[in-house]
């Protein structure tokens, strides 16, 4: 019996280019690991998440049509569970960063402007609500009880700022030339070329843009 659903579904990535569900999944898997290991919040892949959720729903409907004893039922269910894990873990990593660096993330988001937004719509609402709750909590618990000069809520002073000089493990997906590693008190700046497929440990800051454009994968 021919399995009649799955890879014949195509999506558009916004530029009119069709992408396969397989490619969408691969992008999400890469985004998941990047987000997990990156000290900073990366641009949201909400479109891909939504697209994959539709694919999952459609697949579920199709699987429900199969006979209970069809061997494919369990296999499809397992795959869907795996994809769901990847997506939830991805979203959870992002929420964790938003909770930790709320003020910083909102500040950066405002600087970037709505066209270059890194947060999804839902995440932005969450971040704002979270900050408001924090402020309210601080005021109720402490600030209203201290003398007036100390009553200001100062989110930027209190919120953690990600350390972009954190060291990360990475693999270059293509050749990347001339990455400049800042020296410290007894070493000069150093320029390195990252060969395709080579693996490295180094600071996040000099390679941040390559992670964002997909040339470098965090591992």
């Amino acid at each position: 019996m021919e399995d009649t659903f799955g890879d014949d579904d195509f999506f558009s990535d916004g530029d009119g280019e069709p992408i396969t569900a397989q490619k969408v999944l691969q992008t999400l898997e890469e985004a998941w690991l990047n987000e997990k290991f990156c000290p900073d919040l990366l641009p949201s892949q909400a479109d891909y998440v939504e697209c994959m959720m539709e694919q999952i729903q459609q697949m579920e409907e199709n699987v429900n049509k199969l006979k209970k004893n069809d061997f494919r039922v369990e296999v499809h269910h397992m795959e869907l569970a795996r994809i769901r894990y990847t997506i939830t873990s991805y979203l959870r990593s992002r929420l964790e960063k938003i909770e930790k660096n709320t003020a910083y993330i909102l500040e950066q988001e405002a600087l970037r402007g709505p066209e270059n937004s890194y947060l999804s719509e839902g995440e932005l609402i969450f971040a704002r609500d979270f900050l408001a709750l924090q402020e309210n909590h601080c005021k109720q618990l402490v600030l209203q009880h201290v003398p007036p000069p100390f009553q200001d809520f100062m989110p930027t002073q209190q919120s953690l700022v990600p350390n972009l000089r954190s060291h990360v493990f990475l693999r270059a997906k293509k050749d990347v030339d001339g990455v400049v590693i800042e020296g410290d008190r007894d070493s000069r700046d150093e320029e390195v070329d990252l060969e395709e497929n080579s693996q490295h440990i180094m600071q996040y800051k000099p390679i941040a843009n390559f992670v964002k454009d997909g040339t470098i994968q965090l591992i």
Partner: protein
Amino acid sequence: MFCHGLISLDGGCQQLCHHRKIMSLCHSYVPNYFSIPDILATQEKVPCTFEVQVKHLGFLDPGSDKRDIEVGTNIELPFWMASVLKTQRPAIADVGLPKIFKESYRDILKADPVVVDLHKLAPYFYEFGMSLCMLNHRESPEIVNVLVESFKQRFRKILDWAQHSNIEVPESKKLDNAEKIIYQAGREVGSSLHLWLTEGGSLIMAAGMVMQHKKMKLTQRDLLQ
């Protein structure tokens, strides 16, 4: 094999798996507003010499019953207070070095940093040392040197303890607080890896909170909106 918090393929499988929490994001420690270690580290005392007279604060000097602090008075003050006094223009007090960062102790650390019981000498050795250097003391470069070299030499021990054993090594009590933070992070990985190697694969468990959400029949779509 792997099992998901929101979808369980086999109702019974959850009893079999280790109740191991999936490690969340793991960023290195940086001092911050709400960090208790940071508050404690900046609480360490430093010798201060007053360069101007300060009215009405004589009570800060336990060895004197005068009303004011006179020029030239030496008092040990917590770092957070001392740094404010030092950075005023003109400075109210000059800040000296606590004995652990003086040359004689630096020499001991240079000779063999591995055997030193930092916890006993200065539980916030590194953080305190870094804070002191921020005040641009003329011996700062020397202090940083000792901080960096001590850590580099002592790191091998942390590495070995963290990965070799699944119990806390008694000797690790000699680590300073910053070293301990790094050691604990390494130890968690060491023991989960040990468990994985000896008992093989386990099921991925969702954190407790997600299990409750599951009961509420929260769907993925709700999470996304």
